[in-house]
């Protein structure tokens, strides 16, 4: 496995609370899983994915966790096309133009 160099921008993962340490008033599906945290920062020393490491965050905090990603990127988008959305606009323009389909009795 590739060594990730000190100073690389990475994301780490940490278990904040194990299931038995969690607050008492939670629904079961939440209480049965740990509270997890992800933080990004610069790697303090050479390491490999899966190692326990320290990072220095943008606010200069030292945070410990498992190294999970290098140069973490954004993957959210506009999703799959939802054809219903297009129909809304067409219906409404028609109603404004000739009053048809507005649903008024």
């Amino acid at each position, binding site marked *: 496995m590739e060594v990730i160099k000190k100073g690389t921008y990475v994301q780490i993962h940490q278990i*904040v*609370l194990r299931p038995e*340490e*969690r*607050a008492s*008033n*939670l*629904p079961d*599906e*939440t209480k049965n*899983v*740990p*509270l*997890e*945290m*992800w*933080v*990004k*920062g610069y790697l303090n020393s050479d390491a490999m994915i899966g190692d326990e490491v320290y990072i220095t*965050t*943008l*606010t200069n*905090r030292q945070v410990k966790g498992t190294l999970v990603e290098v140069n973490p990127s*954004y*993957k*959210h*988008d*506009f*999703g*799959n*096309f*939802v054809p*219903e*959305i297009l*129909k*809304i*606009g067409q*219906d*409404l*323009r028609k*109603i*404004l133009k000739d*009053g048809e*389909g*507005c*649903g*008024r009795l």
Partner: protein
Amino acid sequence: MADYSYNAVMARKNEIMKMAVGIDYSKFQTSRIGFDYERMMRETGYTLQEVQNIQRDAGVGNTPLIELKNLTALVRKISPKGKGARIFIKDEACNPSGSFKDRRAAISVYHAKKLGYKGVVAATSGNYGAAVASQAAMRNLNCIIVQECYDSRKVGQPEILEKQRKCECYGAEVVQLTVGPELFYTFLRILEETGYFNASLYSPYGIAGVETLGYEVAIQCREQLGKDPDAVVITHAGGGNVTGTARGLIKAGALNTKVVGASVDLTGLHMASDRDFNRKSFTTGHTGFGIPFATWPDRSDVPRSAARPLRYLDRYVTIKQGEVFYMTEALAQLEGLERGPAGNTSLTAAFYIAQEMDEDQIIVVQETEYTGAGKHHMAQLSFARENGIDIRFGDPEEERAGESIILPENPSLIKTRDVDLNKLKKSYIKNCIDNYKVDEIGIKDAEFLAEDTKLSIEEVKKILTEINVKVV
């Protein structure tokens, strides 16, 4: 060495908060339950003019008030003759980070800088994080945003993932957590570790910042229309938007304007549930915040919340997720305004309420928010469909949060549902009695409860009698 266990950190909550907000809340306490709310707002906040100056300096506020002529025409097509108020929208997406939350962040961050804090921290998965990050960037302060972001499969709400990106683009550090109210524990630990300012949504600064919004609405209506708005519709979550806007309207002297709160109906979904987390399409502006924060405002991250919506609400309505997505598309297609869905909660309510009002009346929707990848009705409907939510056209009345999103078959099916405010007021009074563990209260407490619920002292006494609490 300090004890960082969950219980130990939670036990230090009050001292951490005192250090991180710089307010000694105990000095406003007037009785067992009561505190002097107006004095707190006066002594720790800023005057309206100071707030205006701070915001102008940071490029915040003075957003346009736009008439939605096509939507008004649509309302009139489905209204009885003579009905269908003119709808106006306050385009808050024009603020630096794209929402009205810049108004709140501007004051908190200014205050943090003035007091000499090196950075600010906020616990938020919503627009407020972006607002704090943006304002902190302007004032050269460090910024940490603590987000509830993923379920236990590490699947994140697209809207929250986008908010992470936006906070990071302003140079903030974002701490992402899985579902659970113990986010507060992580938040407290970061405040303690860094000594940064808690840019709480619920501090007097956070609320004073919204007052300019209500004030501008009144002034712009007078300038553009020669009169005050008849109603202002406000998306209601934690209560700050309602409280600040209503206070601003009052400060402008718009005393006859009806204050209407609106939330997306997420009845049946548990806010701390790992399973329900990704089965809801709205991460704020919904009943999961709106009802608990109205009936117990002091559940927030400061000892005494400055957001106290029951003092100001004249009416509180809910609407369905499918209706908001529909109106979001309508706003883009008929008015040329592509804005984020969550900000259109109040627009959707206004679309129905306008049908009950006369043609010469004015209804104002007091916010919009930015949109983009993740934070767009296409992204959110697509995500819902991937998570097994049934999306179809039909009667929104049949929508069940977490199971279906029903887009109205036609616009006349969009309806608001009234929440019984008196029931919420009773519930708030009962929560006060339960949380302060009292079985009798003094007259000062009763007076406070009357102010905090916009009820008469007689009405409060009647409710107290019903729950066997004596006023001595």
